[in-house]
């Protein structure tokens, strides 16, 4: 309501999400002479089944358009404008990752210990179980669709919006199903040391360096590639400027 606080619940709720993460990890330790060698891995799978709830309940805007007072318009149920989103309700995000590492705790001498390691990380781009994803590709200026056959009412929607010639399937554009290519070269070296200068019993210097990958943030992928046109359609409705068209 114009000049009043909003009333009613959020148009973006409720937003139930069902997340399942399956993770497995194992590690082997091998001690030989001055070395303690460890290696292992930890694959994981993530599933996020979540509603697309961006304005699905709709937003109703009242102004002072018809009665010269917003409360008057509310009482008479006369709207100034509305908006809503509709289309694909549930998204089924899937993602896999794997990490593997090798490290050597090496007692070089009585005064120097090194900790050398290398970790490899791979996180697959998030995909939608049924391929209901779209991504704008700037080069050819096209909207890439992961699996157009699974988008309900796609042909009619593209015709009505004049975008039929602006879309292409992922396979036609040489893109994988998630519409984002995988990043395979995530090697993370780790180095640490502990040193007692001159075999001092009082002074110890320690240091370390490492690279740490933090994977792909899943929810922006979900909102941009799974919760956008043409899977989700946003509509606005504005009242006619004349009262006769209530």
């Amino acid at each position, binding site marked *: 309501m114009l000049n009043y606080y909003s009333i009613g619940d959020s148009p973006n709720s409720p937003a139930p999400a069902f997340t399942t993460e399956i993770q497995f990890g194992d590690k082997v330790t091998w001690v030989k002479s001055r070395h303690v060698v460890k290696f292992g891995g930890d694959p994981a799978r993530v599933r996020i089944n979540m509603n697309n709830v961006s304005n699905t309940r*709709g937003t*109703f805007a009242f102004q002072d358009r018809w009665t010269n007072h917003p409360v008057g318009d509310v009482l008479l*149920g*006369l*709207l*100034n*404008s*509305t908006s*809503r989103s509709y289309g694909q309700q549930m998204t089924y995000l899937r993602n896999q990752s794997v990490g593997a590492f090798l490290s050597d705790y090496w007692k070089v001498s009585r005064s120097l210990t090194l900790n050398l390691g290398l970790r490899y*990380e791979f*996180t697959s*781009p998030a995909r939608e179980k049924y391929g209901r994803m*779209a*991504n*704008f*590709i*700037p080069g050819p200026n096209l909207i890439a669709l992961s699996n157009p056959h699974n988008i309900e009412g796609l042909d009619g929607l593209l015709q*009505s*919006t004049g*975008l039929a010639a602006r879309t292409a399937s992922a396979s036609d554009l040489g*893109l994988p199903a998630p*519409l*984002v*290519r995988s*990043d395979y070269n*995530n090697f*993370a070296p780790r180095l640490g040391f502990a040193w007692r200068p001159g075999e001092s*019993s*009082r*002074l*110890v*210097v*320690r*240091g*370390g*360096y*490492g*690279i*740490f*990958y*933090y*994977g*792909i943030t899943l929810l*922006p*992928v979900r909102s*941009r*590639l799974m919760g*956008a*046109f043409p899977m*989700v*359609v*946003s*509509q*606005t*409705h*504005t*009242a*006619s400027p004349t009262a006769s068209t*209530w």
Partner: protein
Amino acid sequence: MTLANPFPQERAVIGGTTTASGYEVDTTTGYLQSYNLTVEYAVRGGTVVETG
């Protein structure tokens, strides 16, 4: 437009068709680099001073 018919089809304007929504196709995984250096010195009486 009334509450009885808040979404009349004849007044509907579809949005999101003239703006681009997307994600970098050749995205790289984000990472951080961490460095640390500490010096530890044992002074008298079982007291250790550490700086880093």
